[in-house]
């Protein structure tokens, strides 16, 4: 089976996925836009949503990116031990490079200090997840930095508890205001340690929109937070209204007894995700 996973196949799949992710808004998000359009009362909020729907129609017709920011590609490779490919990172980056060229995607990645653009949107940020069952999947998220820049991490005192968690998430969304391009998807990572919590927050953004955490306690927290965020009156594109966020996704992991790491990763309305399942 591993014979099928050739370098070129992965390059082609990544290229196609990156271009498609940038030009075709996921169906679930579109459905949410339309639902929100029915529910919003304020004319400005309605207009904002109409513009977003129109924007994705134009992107689809013209094959143009939904947003000028075609992001820093974030990749999660989910694989089982049978599918170890030593050249995988090279193939992924090659696919991304080709997509930038063929799909006319903006070069948005630069050296952090010299600020020299790599011109290719590579290297991608690549994470790995080892699975028990035979698996080989590549998940891709071209992550725009309007929303990434508004994301935050806090090493919270465990004594602050649930109330502290909720107030920090709300504070992050409130402070961000219109900057991360709402309606948002709010990814929250709770637990682990300093760096793990941020990964959990990012991982939460990869979850299918509209699904809740399988743990009923956390699912309830997701619902409560969504309700409270949508009372902040930031609204679509920041012009006020009920639709500040489309979903709150929380992922958790046990942490140190003296610690409560809490990361909030915001995702803009162009929630571009592609999941490629090879096996």
């Amino acid at each position, binding site marked *: 089976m591993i014979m099928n996973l050739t370098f070129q196949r992965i390059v082609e799949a990544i290229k196609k996925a990156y271009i498609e992710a940038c030009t*075709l808004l996921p169906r679930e998000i579109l459905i949410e836009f*339309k639902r929100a359009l029915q529910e919003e009362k304020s004319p400005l909020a309605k207009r904002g949503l109409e513009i977003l*729907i129109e924007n994705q*129609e134009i992107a689809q*017709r*013209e*094959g143009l990116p939904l947003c000028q920011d075609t992001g820093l590609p974030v990749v999660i490779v989910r694989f089982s031990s049978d599918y170890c490919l030593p050249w995988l990172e090279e193939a992924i980056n090659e696919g991304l490079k080709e997509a930038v060229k063929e*799909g*006319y995607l903006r070069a948005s990645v630069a050296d952090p200090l010299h600020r020299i653009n790599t011109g290719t949107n590579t290297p991608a940020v690549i994470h790995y997840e080892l699975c028990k069952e035979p698996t080989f999947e590549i998940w891709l998220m071209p992550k725009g930095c309007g929303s990434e820049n508004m994301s935050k991490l806090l090493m919270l005192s465990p004594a602050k508890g649930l109330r502290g968690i909720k107030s920090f998430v709300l504070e992050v969304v409130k402070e961000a205001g219109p900057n991360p391009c709402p309606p948002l998807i709010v990814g929250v990572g709770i637990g682990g340690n300093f760096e793990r919590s941020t990964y959990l927050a990012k991982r939460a953004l990869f979850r299918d929109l509209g699904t809740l955490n399988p743990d009923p306690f956390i699912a309830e927290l997701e619902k409560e937070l969504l309700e409270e965020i949508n009372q902040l009156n930031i609204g679509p594109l920041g012009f006020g209204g009920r639709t500040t966020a489309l979903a709150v996704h929380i992922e958790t992991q046990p942490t140190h007894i003296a610690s409560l790491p809490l990361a909030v990763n915001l995702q803009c309305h162009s929630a571009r995700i592609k999941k490629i399942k090879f096996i």
Partner: protein
Amino acid sequence: MIKPQSLTSEELSFYRDLSFKNFVFFKEHFNGDFASYKELLKNKLKSLGLLAIDQEGGQVCRIKQDLEAPLEIVKKSQKEGKEVFIAWAEKIAKTLKSYELNLNLAPVVDLGDESASDFLKGRTYGNDPKLVTFFANIFIEIHKKWHINTTLKHFPGLGEVKVDPHLELSLKERVSSEDLYPFKELAPKVSFIMTTHILVPEWDTFPVTFSQRAIKFLREFLNYQGVIVSDDLQMGALARYSLSERIIRTLVSGHNLIIFCGKPLELVETLFELKSELEKSQVIKIRVKESLTILEKYFIL
């Protein structure tokens, strides 16, 4: 639709210059001497590709044939055995063969029985997706035996759609797993799937004909590798879009072939209008390349 008789040399040279080679024929084409008409096309154009008709049985028969409607023959076969259906399908396939056609725009795998909307009545195989798949499979196999390609239509299923897409754009609130069953089961067996002009709000704000999401679903979820062909772009359902808009959107969505049954010169004019956009647009270039690759795979270029 190309003129059934007396094609002028001007028309023929347009078709040749634009490399038209795939044609859908209608009743009018079979009124006269079809063989010599086809010979004329063959001689004047560089080569001929797909030669298609809608020969579904019953009312929809472009070549006059005394055939029961699909729904009728399915019912009869359930009582008397599948041989009845096989004989019926064989008659259809043989007819296409005798006219040297190579593509039947059938079977209809939309779900519906006697209570189906008027435009679909009698054309369907029934309401039970497994039964529809069983008989459609025989139809496909018999055609294969006679080297005729078949087309599953109308994706994602016209079952429960009340308005005829020939007249207006209608809405399908939900595409059920029953609707998709025949497409999913038969997709690996056919080289052609035809879509229809309906709006599925849970998929897109565009009709299926213009929807990248619908095509993506067909390719990824149903794992379909063959040719995706649109229904006639001249139907009333798409009337609010200009012809050039219809062509561009259908191409961009990922359809590999477009059916146009209007006046050929109108199409030629529109294609000339579109020339610069077709040449400039990167996405169209990619789509055309994809389509040519798929068509090549089926040896029908």
